[in-house]
């Protein structure tokens, strides 16, 4: 659904109208089929924690967000696309690497990465593309750390990651890049078989339970799920702050880690970059807010709209308010599929928001807001570039 060009960060009007009428609606989607759209906060939580609402993409009735998603996920069967107990088995293999403590341990590494990228921006002049010059290389570096990709391979990894993260890469190019990435990860897994390092790949190899193919699929998933999302949160978050100068000043002038952490939660809620809804299909009949959803019917849980539900958030949920208590937002989803990389993303975003505006206090957009171009059809909402100056 389209957003209003003048208000690119607001919810699409159509979604808002549906949400105002009812927390559960029937909608027609891109491929002509119909699905249930869940827009209320309480209803979204109920569906996402209901084991009858399946994530299994092979089941008839599952609604894909876009043709690309269908192509990618039917080829790559992994954690987000299977139900428990298979899901729990795959997830438990990697939870150790995504704990709160592991994420905090990476904070100094992320700080150094962001500082170096900001140094390079400052050294290069007084303009930059915040997406390509900061957000993407920062996310690549972070994912390399988590997976345990050696510095020697880091460049190739980053180059492929860059293309994977750029919204709107044509489908053909995209699937070739995915295949190249798969090949690169394959060689990393084979290296790890002789010399397992730290990070997800090394740990999975040491655990000795999964065949190479599955380890590659897991690494590819972490890349696909994490790289673009953190890059776009960084860029779009900056755009949101640059267009709300009073809020930007709060972040820039704060030395309080608790405030920065709260600001990250509010930006996650406000932007809800995973904007195409959590996709599910009813495995059995279930009832939501008095509506009967029958076995085999598709469900789209609009977590972005739920994150703007006035019954769940104080004040005006359409406003960006960095003092708001937004910690119960659904930007990382809810239920057993809630984001695996959330602790990592939080630390990374706290570091980048807490550093960028402090180090470049005169940062501003280099083009008018209405000239920024967006990608609406990818799983993650983002901009193609964000020209800034200082």
């Amino acid at each position, binding site marked *: 659904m389209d957003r209003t060009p003048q208000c690119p960060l607001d919810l699409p009007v159509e979604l808002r109208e549906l949400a105002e009428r009812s927390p559960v609606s029937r909608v027609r989607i891109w491929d002509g089929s119909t699905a249930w759209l869940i827009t209320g906060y309480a209803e979204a939580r109920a569906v996402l*924690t209901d084991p009858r609402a399946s994530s299994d993409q092979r089941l008839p009735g599952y609604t894909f967000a876009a043709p690309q998603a269908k192509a990618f996920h039917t080829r790559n069967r992994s954690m987000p696309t299977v139900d428990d107990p298979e899901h729990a088995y795959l997830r438990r293999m990697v*939870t150790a690497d*995504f704990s709160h403590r*592991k994420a905090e341990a990476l904070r100094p590494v992320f700080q150094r990465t962001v500082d170096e990228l900001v140094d390079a921006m400052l050294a290069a002049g007084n303009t930059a593309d915040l997406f390509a010059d900061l957000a993407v290389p920062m996310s690549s570096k972070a994912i390399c750390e988590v997976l345990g990709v050696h510095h020697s391979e880091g460049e190739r990894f980053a180059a492929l990651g860059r293309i994977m993260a750029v919204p709107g890469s044509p489908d053909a190019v995209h699937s070739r890049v995915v295949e190249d990435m798969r090949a690169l990860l394959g060689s990393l897994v084979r290296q790890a078989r002789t010399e397992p390092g730290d990070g997800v790949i090394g740990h999975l190899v040491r655990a000795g339970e999964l065949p190479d193919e599955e380890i590659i699929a897991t690494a590819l998933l972490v890349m696909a799920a994490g790289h673009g999302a953190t890059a776009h949160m960084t860029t779009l978050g900056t755009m949101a702050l640059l267009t709300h100068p009073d809020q930007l000043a709060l972040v820039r002038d704060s030395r309080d880690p608790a405030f920065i952490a709260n600001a990250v939660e509010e930006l996650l809620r406000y932007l809800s970059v995973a904007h195409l809804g959590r996709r599910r299909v009813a495995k059995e009949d279930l009832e939501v807010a008095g509506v009967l959803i029958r076995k085999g019917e598709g469900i789209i849980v609009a977590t972005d709209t739920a994150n703007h539900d006035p019954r769940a958030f104080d004040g005006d949920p359409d406003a960006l308010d960095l003092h708001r208590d937004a*910690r119960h937002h659904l930007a990382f989803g809810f*239920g057993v599929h*809630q984001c695996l990389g959330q602790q990592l993303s939080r630390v990374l975003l706290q570091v980048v928001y807490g550093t960028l505006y402090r180090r470049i206090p005169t940062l501003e957009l280099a083009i008018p807001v209405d000239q920024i171009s967006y990608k609406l059809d990818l799983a993650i909402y983002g901009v193609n570039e964000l020209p800034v100056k200082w």
Partner: protein
Amino acid sequence: MRIHLDRDKCIGSGQCVLAAPEWFDQDEDGIAVVLVESVPEKEWDEVNRAAYTCPALAISLGSE
């Protein structure tokens, strides 16, 4: 108030540790553990939030 944690349900999101770090931690596998089961009334808010934000509904709160 008493904390009951169903570790089999835990998905390692870490939400409980963020919400109530004095009551919850994650073990080496990233799975939640309860540090202290019995919660005095003045701390109920934090622990309630941990239960509310647990995506796996693995935390339930009972009376002492």
